[in-house]
């Protein structure tokens, strides 16, 4: 078996999720190669080559792959497919955008967002917002898989894979990049943070999210939000934790003013320790929290910040 992992990168940096995807590839077993596609990505390729367990980093470095749009990238992956039994990518917006296109080009199914590897052709994945877990088996000769990165441990740095330049250039007339607006954020990324503190509708308004800042600073935490807080316009959607937002599994998750709707729980219930702060004693969030504090968050948050 041989597995191709699609590397994800932003601004010349290899994304943390890629090491988790290689972790999933190791669980399947076989030779592991990484594809780095982009414009001016030599540094990314070097970082990818340091990941443990990787044999070869294949680099498609061309302006056509800038911004990693799905149309050229899927075509490139489809051209490389014959060398591999599996192709894996993170179940990020990038992986979700590109891989189904690859699967259709190769006339095979895709297995989305796997949680575990049962064997080289059998995987577990969440359905119904994580309220059920399906075990699925693929008989396709070429398997296209996206990986829920929080479900797999990352491989360490310390490998020394070879780096091979690919001269396949696929350009697509179907789409062109216009622009990008990325949230400026000095905090850790939600998906990879060790501690996450999230606010819900109970925060009352967007300004009150500042109450979470000081605590997040002290704990080195990322700040998230429930869908209710996003829909109410308090904070942008990229802060959303839940089935329709980011899936997180930090060591410590602090839910503030979040009632605990099913769709939110699906995004954070795999956290190691969950703390809930809510004024409603009956809020469903307390049914999954290890530690609960019933009370007014506007009193509790400043006290917590001061005492940490």
């Amino acid at each position, binding site marked *: 078996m041989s597995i191709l992992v699609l590397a994800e990168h932003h601004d010349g940096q290899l994304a943390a999720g890629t090491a988790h995807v290689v972790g999933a590839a190791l669980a399947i077993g076989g030779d592991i190669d990484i594809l780095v596609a982009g414009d001016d990505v030599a540094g990314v390729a070097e970082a990818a080559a340091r990941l443990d367990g990787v044999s070869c980093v294949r680099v498609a470095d061309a302006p056509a792959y800038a911004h990693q749009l799905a149309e050229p990238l899927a075509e490139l992956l489809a051209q490389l497919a014959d060398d591999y039994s599996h192709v894996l990518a993170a179940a990020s917006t990038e992986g979700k955008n590109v891989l189904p296109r690859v699967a259709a080009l190769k006339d095979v199914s895709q297995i989305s967002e796997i949680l575990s590897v049962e064997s080289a052709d059998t995987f577990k994945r*969440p359905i119904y917002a994580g309220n059920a877990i399906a075990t699925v088996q693929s008989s396709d000769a070429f398997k296209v898989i996206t990986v829920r990165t929080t479900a797999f441990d990352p491989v360490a740095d310390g490998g020394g894979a070879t780096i091979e330049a690919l001269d396949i250039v696929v350009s697509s007339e179907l789409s062109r990049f216009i622009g990008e607006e990325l949230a400026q954020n000095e905090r850790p990324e939600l998906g990879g943070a060790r501690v996450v503190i999230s606010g819900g509708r109970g925060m009352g308004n967007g300004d009150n999210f500042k109450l979470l800042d000081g605590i997040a600073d002290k704990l080195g935490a990322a700040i998230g939000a429930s869908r209710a807080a996003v829909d109410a316009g308090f904070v942008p959607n990229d802060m959303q934790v839940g089935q329709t937002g980011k899936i997180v599994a930090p060591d410590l998750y602090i839910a503030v003013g979040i009632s605990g709707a099913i769709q939110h729980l699906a995004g954070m219930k795999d956290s190691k320790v969950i703390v809930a702060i809510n004024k409603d004693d009956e809020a469903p969030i307390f049914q999954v929290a290890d530690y609960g504090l019933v009370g007014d968050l506007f009193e509790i948050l400043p006290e917590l910040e001061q005492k940490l």
Partner: protein
Amino acid sequence: MKVLVAVKRVIDYNVKIRVKPDHSDVDLTNVKMAMNPFCEIAVEEAVRLKEKGVATEIVAVTVGPKAAQEQLRTALALGADRAIHVETEERVESLAVAKLLKGVVDEEQPGLVILGKQAIDTDNNQTGQMLAALANMGQGTFASEVAFGDGVEEGEVRVTREIDGGLQTVALKLPAVVTTDLRLNEPRYAKLPDIMKAKKKPLDTRTPEALGVSVASGLSLLKVETPAERKGGIKLGSVDELIDKLKNEAKVL
């Protein structure tokens, strides 16, 4: 421009699901069904494009059992002009749905196809991207804005996409595929007179055989389980107690 909008019949998002005792699947008998929420957003976007004069005709399509005609009638009540039902009682995976939709695209030749980014039952997030590949179209997935003429050339659509960490804007050559994300719009409710009128709008049926598509899949569902339940913990009396527990019991501080 003709807009094709795909909808799916799924379990209502407010219903708590039950796994069948034999673990073969989720039990859908006597469960309230509805249009997939992301598909509602897709229909709403098509209707808004028609209200703006960009779309001239909206064709709603679904793949599924006889009962899925209910969701097509909902789409018609919301503003679709006519509907196509690709009828099959089989379990149909995303790739087969994409092939069936490709068959409908070939017949209808729409300028734009709008789908929900994922269905809330299988959570696959695949069909739109697969359809775009099969039809050789560009794809604007996870759209939070769809615009014409504004900063893009004639024959293109501008799509703003929700990506990890922010927003990305692309221009796609038409015809193109767009999949909807939550913030694209807020779907309206159907009014009673429109629901009555929808009963008289045309609804055609097709079969996978007539479209020349096999719905067989390389995937088999071996088992469905309920995830391990997380047990609730304890309620604490003070912030001091919380900090103490986090430091000394959970050891996460």
